[in-house]
């Protein structure tokens, strides 16, 4: 069974045409050990069994199948197309045996033997010849029937087929595998509506979809409007519509049920229309657990299917600082989602980083199950020169067809890492450079980089007119304000004038009477200028006036005391000592500053 790919299991429907033929094509005829080839088998006509092909050195890593019905001049023929993706196990000329159609124990058609040429890994492939003519069909093939144009030809997976339903005007049929399945194995399921061709079906409505509890379901694209014709069991001809197809993966072992689907058919014409509800029978599947015997330690739970493994690098010679792209490709059919990135056991001197490569994945869900390709890419960046070996990569999986654990593996790959000198894979190109070359020797050996202009000049150019503007505006505003209130200038200058007088009094060696008179004058001038106090007030009146203007009472009292001290010093100069003059200067200066800080020129008066 391993060596012979039994096609009969794929064929479920009887074939309606009389003529039998088998045609096998191989594309491409030459591959390397790391590639895969596509083997297409086209069967036509009526037969009981299919044998072959024998492929002892080839492994099937993917499969798909389809059926097309052709009606020519009232004659119906059906064509089965099986596409196998095959991977070589060794190099050399590998033979693919003939495919035989058998009827009543007799071979009625046979394809020719094919040879696949397999070159060693990395060998250049010969240029593709123009499209080869299709090989001669097997014996007993009088003509090749043209295919009916179909965007997505329906495929047949084999297994259960309608038996007791044949003869009924319409029925729903669940097509799936007719064997025990394993936990985690995606299996194809199709819900097919069979309506007898002579039944006047005018409309179709879905009442309930199968819930598929206990499964992970992946639905494939379907077109209920697409109709193909079948004649199961040599009974009446049926129009077959696919209402649901996809792959389901059982989540638990034991007996699980595929729910029925319910539809309502509207039949008849406008005057005799009636509605006919129909439902499919529930289908019970036996789900076996994956056996524990022989289970490899590195088997990933759920990895059930048939897989092939390939690894390649985009370059085998590189230099330190460069990276090689390692691509690990898993192809086949089964639970591809359970795959995990392979564990690369590389030496520490190689830095490994995973590259996102989900966009390279291919996943096909159809009535053949789940098949496709998962790609894992890694960047390998060696840190030191020398030879680096990427060890063999293993993938353990459970093959539900053989019921055994199997293993796919790659060959080791060697990388040659050179130092940071010349690049070994420099491509020799045309002698004429693709860019413009200068053959003039430089006159000045070296030039300094141009010096960037100082950034201060632009700021100066921007700021100068603004500063000029602000200055002129300020000056004009001050002039205007002085013109409006001439007293304001006197008020603002009062403290400055008084302090200047204090400094002169401190410097000048005045006689005591003149000193106290000057100090009193200075204080009274300040009070007049700053607080508009009239001249000639006694110290007591000054204190009262200050209090009336909102000056704090202690400050008003201090001013009163200073004025009294000045009067005392003026009239009894001999009683006052030099130390008193200095202390008075300090006290008066402090009083002046406090009075000025009271800012009586502001609204609200002094505080």
């Amino acid at each position, binding site marked *: 069974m391993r060596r012979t790919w039994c096609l009969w299991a794929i064929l479920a429907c009887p074939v309606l045409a009389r003529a039998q033929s088998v045609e096998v094509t191989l594309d491409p005829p030459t591959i390397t050990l790391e590639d895969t080839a596509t083997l297409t088998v086209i069967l036509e006509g009526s037969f009981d069994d299919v044998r072959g092909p024998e492929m002892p050195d080839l492994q099937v890593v993917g499969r798909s199948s389809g059926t097309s019905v052709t009606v020519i001049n009232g004659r119906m023929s059906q064509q089965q197309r099986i596409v196998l993706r095959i991977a070589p196990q060794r190099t050399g000329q590998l033979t693919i045996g003939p495919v035989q159609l058998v009827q009543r124990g007799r071979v009625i058609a046979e394809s020719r033997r094919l040879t696949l040429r397999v070159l060693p890994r990395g060998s250049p492939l010969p240029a593709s010849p123009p499209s080869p003519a299709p090989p001669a069909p097997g014996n007993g093939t009088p003509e090749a029937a043209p295919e009916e144009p179909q965007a997505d030809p329906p495929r047949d997976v084999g297994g259960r087929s309608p038996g007791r339903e044949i003869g009924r005007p319409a029925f729903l049929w669940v097509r799936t595998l007719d064997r025990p399945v394993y936990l985690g194995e995606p299996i194809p399921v199709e819900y097919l509506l069979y309506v007898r061709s002579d039944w006047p079906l005018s409309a179709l409505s879905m009442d309930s979809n199968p819930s598929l509890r206990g499964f992970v379901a992946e639905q494939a694209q379907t077109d209920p409007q697409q109709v193909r014709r079948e004649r199961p069991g040599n009974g009446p001809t049926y129009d077959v519509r696919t209402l649901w197809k996809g792959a389901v993966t059982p989540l638990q072992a034991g007996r699980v049920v595929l729910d029925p689907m319910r539809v309502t058919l509207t039949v008849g014409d406008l005057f005799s229309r009636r509605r006919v509800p129909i439902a499919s029978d529930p289908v019970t599947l036996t789900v076996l657990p994956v056996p524990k015997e022989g289970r490899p330690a590195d088997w990933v739970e759920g990895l059930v299917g048939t897989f092939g493994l390939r690894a390649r690098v985009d370059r085998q010679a*590189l230099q330190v*600082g*460069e*990276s090689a*792209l390692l691509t690990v490709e898993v192809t086949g059919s089964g639970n591809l989602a359970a795959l995990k990135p392979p564990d690369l056991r590389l030496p520490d001197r190689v830095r490994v*980083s*995973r*590259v*996102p490569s989900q*966009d*390279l994945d291919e996943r096909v869900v159809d009535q053949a199950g789940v098949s496709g390709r998962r790609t894992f890419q890694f*960047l390998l*960046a060696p840190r030191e020169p020398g030879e680096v070996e990427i060890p063999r990569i293993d993938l353990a999986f459970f093959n539900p067809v053989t019921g055994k654990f199997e293993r796919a593996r790659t060959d080791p790959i060697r990388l040659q890492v050179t130092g940071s000198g*010349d*690049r070994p*894979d*420099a*491509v*020799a*190109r*045309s*002698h*004429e*450079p*693709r*860019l*413009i*070359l*200068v*053959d*003039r*020797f*430089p006159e*000045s*050996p*070296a*030039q300094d*980089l*141009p010096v960037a*202009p100082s950034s201060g000049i*632009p700021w100066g*150019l*921007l700021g100068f*007119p*603004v500063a000029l*503007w602000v200055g002129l505006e300020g000056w004009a505003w001050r002039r205007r304000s002085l013109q409006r209130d001439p007293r304001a200038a006197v008020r603002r200058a009062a403290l400055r004038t008084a302090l200047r007088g204090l400094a002169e009094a401190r410097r000048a060696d005045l006689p005591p009477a003149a000193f106290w008179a000057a100090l009193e004058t200075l204080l009274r001038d300040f009070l007049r200028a700053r607080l508009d106090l009239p001249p000639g007030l006694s110290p007591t009146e000054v204190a009262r006036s200050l209090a009336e203007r909102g000056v704090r009472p202690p400050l008003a009292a201090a001013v009163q005391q200073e004025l009294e001290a000045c009067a005392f010093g003026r009239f009894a100069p001999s009683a006052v000592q030099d130390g008193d003059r200095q202390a008075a200067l300090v006290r008066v200066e402090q009083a002046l500053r406090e009075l000025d800080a009271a800012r009586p020129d502001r609204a609200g008066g002094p505080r």
Partner: protein
Amino acid sequence: MRVAPLFLLLGLAASTTARAGTLEDRFREGVDALRTGRPEEAAGVFRELATRYGLDAPEVLLDLAVAEFEAGRPGPAIAALHRVIRRDPRGPLAETARINLSRARALLSEEAGKGPKAFVFSPYTDAWTLLAGWISPRIALGIFVGLWWAFLLGLAAFRWPGSGAWRRFLAGPVVALGIACLLAGGLAWASDRVSRYTVGVIIGSRTALLPDPAALEPTLVLPEGLEVRVLEVRGGLARVRLSSGGEGYVPEQSIEIP
């Protein structure tokens, strides 16, 4: 003893003459190697002239770029072309370097287009370069300063005592000048910002762009010769931004800042 300085001077002159002749000969050797299909050898010659002998003139850098490109190292080639342009942005060789840059980008884009993940090799572009990359910062600043002065003069005329009769004629132009001034200021600022971009060239053949410094899996694999904006270089990693807007870290040795 009196003749010793004379001999010394003669010796120095002779050695200088010999060195100059050797450098020119080496330059010619490099050009010949490039014309006869030996780009690796030519690149070695030009690199030696530029680094060992300090002859980093635009002619040598430009030929070094051609040799590196022909030898299959587009990253260093593009970086050398950028250096030629920076040396003398208005010189005739800068124009040649710009043409070579365009050709190199076109050739790289053509080759990259064959792969599944195509990159467009172009100068680093983002919203700011689109807005203000077309104008020199000096010119933009000159326009701004001119408009600024004009606006201030207009304001001064508007505010001038006795200009009451003219104010209604002045108001519109002054407002327009103010708006133009604002726009020109923004343009000058953006142009200055763009001119301060540090643009780097990827020189590693396949450089992993890590989303953060500690990440193990890159978000992208950058091809050699891609021009990116370098935001910062720290701890052996350079934080870069791509024209597409993506941002990440690349090893410092995988990028060259011209």
